[in-house]
């Protein structure tokens, strides 16, 4: 497989006709919903100043079919699937939203493609073989997600992972036609930007294996922690903690927040114009991680001997404890009081 630069060069060469004018090589996109809530589609529809459809158009992506928005229905759709399977229709990007349900007893019958006897387990596997790239949109399609929560009634898994274990409905060593593993846009639901930027990078031939983390998540958002840029950072620094929901302090010590352990540039982006989970006053549940659905007591920090079990991802525990004790003793009164209020009660001002 040629390297990324080489691939880009080939692409660009192919985009210029004899006249030298750019004739964009458009790519095709098919979106399937498996065991999904539809929330990832709802997130995608929030994208962009011009709206998702205009943006896909501008990115050079032609939507072959999406169950929520396309006109084609019934037989027309089945014929499209058949054309992809015979190779008559090029499929560049296959997006799958929702868990792959293998139950009951491995039959996949908990999720049948309506109008047919075919399961989504079978259909998604079959179409993936014809796709240049395969994208799992959301933590369900990536890892199994909420439907895989105990007692996992439907034997749910992701396309390429079963929880954190490689190998879901596709084998661990599966690669798409272009040589990539399934690209996992984790999140429940993911940020609209994560979805569209990943599709844009694929359309541009600009996303290679090195751009993904060990779980197949694009590093442009997975290289960050949800904690980075949190509006509660000053409270975190001084370990000035909220005790109950709606207080402004850091939610790590008491309220179950996992932002220091969860990947995602959540607090470096605006969600719905300016929000984020921690900004809105509730805990990060690490929805970009495999197995997040197994957690219990969302808004309670598990502790042993008064010390939170889940410390920041890669920080030595002894150092964390030492620094926490030090910063607690240095906490300004303003920070301490504001941490335990639902609004700013002490304004910043220069110390005398």
């Amino acid at each position, binding site marked *: 497989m040629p390297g990324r630069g080489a691939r880009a060069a080939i692409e660009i060469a192919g985009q210029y006709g004899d006249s030298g004018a750019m004739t964009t090589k458009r790519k095709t996109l098919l979106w399937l*919903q498996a*065991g999904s*809530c*539809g*929330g*990832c589609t*709802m*997130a995608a*529809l*929030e*994208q962009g*100043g*011009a*709206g998702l*459809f*205009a943006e896909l158009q501008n990115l050079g992506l032609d939507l072959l*079919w999406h*169950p*929520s*928005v*396309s*006109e084609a*229905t*019934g*037989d027309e*759709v*089945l014929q499209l699937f058949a054309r992809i399977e015979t190779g008559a229709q090029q499929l560049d990007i296959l997006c799958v939203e929702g868990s792959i*349900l293998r139950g*009951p007893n491995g039959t996949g019958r*908990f*999720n*049948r493609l*309506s*109008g*047919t006897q075919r399961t989504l387990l079978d259909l998604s596997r079959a179409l993936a073989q014809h796709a240049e790239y395969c994208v799992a949109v959301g933590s369900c399609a990536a890892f199994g997600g909420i439907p895989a*929560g105990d*007692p996992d*009634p*439907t034997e749910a898994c992701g396309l390429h992972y079963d929880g954190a274990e490689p190998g879901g409905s596709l084998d661990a060593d599966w690669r798409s036609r272009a040589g990539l593993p399934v690209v996992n846009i984790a999140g*429940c*639901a993911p940020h609209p930007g994560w979805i569209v930027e990943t599709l844009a990078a694929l359309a541009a031939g600009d996303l290679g294996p090195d751009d993904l983390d060990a779980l197949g998540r694009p590093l442009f958002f997975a290289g960050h922690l949800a904690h980075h840029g949190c509006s509660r950072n000053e409270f975190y620094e001084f370990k000035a903690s909220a005790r109950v*929901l*709606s207080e402004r302090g850091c939610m790590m010590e008491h309220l179950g927040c996992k932002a220091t352990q969860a990947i995602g540039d959540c607090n470096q982006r605006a*969600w*719905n*114009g*300016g*929000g*984020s*989970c921690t*900004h*809105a*006053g*509730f805990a990060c*549940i690490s*929805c970009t991680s495999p197995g997040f659905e197994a957690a*219990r007591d*969302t*808004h309670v920090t598990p502790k042993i001997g008064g010390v939170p079990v889940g410390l920041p991802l890669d920080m030595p525990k002894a150092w964390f404890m030492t620094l926490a004790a030090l910063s607690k003793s240095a906490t300004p009164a303003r920070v301490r009081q504001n941490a335990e209020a639902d609004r*700013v009660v002490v304004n910043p001002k220069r110390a005398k």
Partner: protein
Amino acid sequence: MSRLVVGPFNRVEGDLELTLDVEDGRVAEARVATTLYRGFEQILVGRPAGDALTIAPRICGICSVSQSLAAAAVLRELCGVQPPRNGELAANLAHAAENIADHLSHFYLFFMPDFCRAEYASKPWHGEIHKRFKAVEGSAARDMLPARARLLHIMGLIAGKWPHSLALQPGGVTRALDLGGKMRLLAILGDFRAFAEKHLFGAPLEQIAALETPEQLAAFAEGPGDFAAFLRVARDLRLDTLGRCALPLMSFGAYHTAEGALFPAGVADAAGAALPMGAIGEQVASSFFADSAEDPALSFTTPDMERAQAYSFAKAPRLDGRPAETGAVARQAVAGHKLVRALLGDARGSHVLVRVVARVLEIAAVALAAENWARALDVRESFCAASAAAVKGAGVGRIEAARGALGHWVSVERGVIRSYQIIAPTTWNFSPRDAAGVPGPLEQALVGVETGAQGAKAAAIQHVVRSFDPCMVCTAH
């Protein structure tokens, strides 16, 4: 007689399949199925009660706030907390944003594109409608999607994100807005008003809220805007005679404040007159589930793929033993909306036109109410009361989602969920047959619909199904 199986049935939320028995070009019998089961009621059992707020919203990406609010309502009952006024108002604003966004998605993305089909190419209105509403390519979505995204900025302010937030708690909402936040809310609502008045209505919201008679509606249809364009198509295609359903109309009541509900709870007959609220039960005679109690407070969900006669993962909810229709048309009929009641009364039942009209009129009514709720926020006061964890007891959370009556029946022991049963709006509307063989509302509404030469592809079938705005992921959960 021939049997048609219709699917994949797209531009609905989730997985929908129809089986139609057609005789002489008309539907003689219809069966509706949802073909996806994820097992949320099983997943919720055994978890700490408060975790319902993490799991339940994820039943549905399009009604996530509604699922949150139903779960929060049960927990509120169990832990006895009362949210402060700001908490109620902010929750109403988040709920309004979701419901209006859903109504917009339905009208522009799901429902209207069917009128662009080649089947209608000879109609005088087809050119204009095709240009405006063609799926993915039409100009309307280019106007609507940015406006919808902007409206959902309300979620950024109140709920952190959408879908799937934990901001909506039994004691209120987790973030206290400051003065800047309140002003941003009003700015967002102002932007929404501008979109709705320019594109959807071509008229002030107040004028839409004042429509009371079919004659006023007919006059309005001659004006500009996307709603008027729909009304002209509806008149030509006689959508007031299509998809008729004469069942009780049920609403659980929506948008509560100390002054009461904006749209009260209740039941109306098919012509809109008030009826008493009855007992609710769920049957599984046609569903892939093992027998359990009919009372959702006592029942459990156990899949049974081998059940004889089963054809859907939806159960069959019944109100005093009968199917009932729910949704914007029921909500407005129960609330006494004069125009909706008149349209129902003329037809002695609901139909495609009134279902869509009720939904679109509600956009104006709710947007106006939302402006009042935002202005009423007192940013000096609390938005959330502290509440203890629910330890034991049983309760019901009843709310109105965009698509109608949503209920969560929950029992808790030693802080852990013992049973959790959900009846969603489309479980009512797209119910399969019950133990007595009585079809659900859609199954009844499809009988008699002409399929003509188009068979399964007939646009009339598509109009009837989509007029209910089904959410199949909620239906079977």
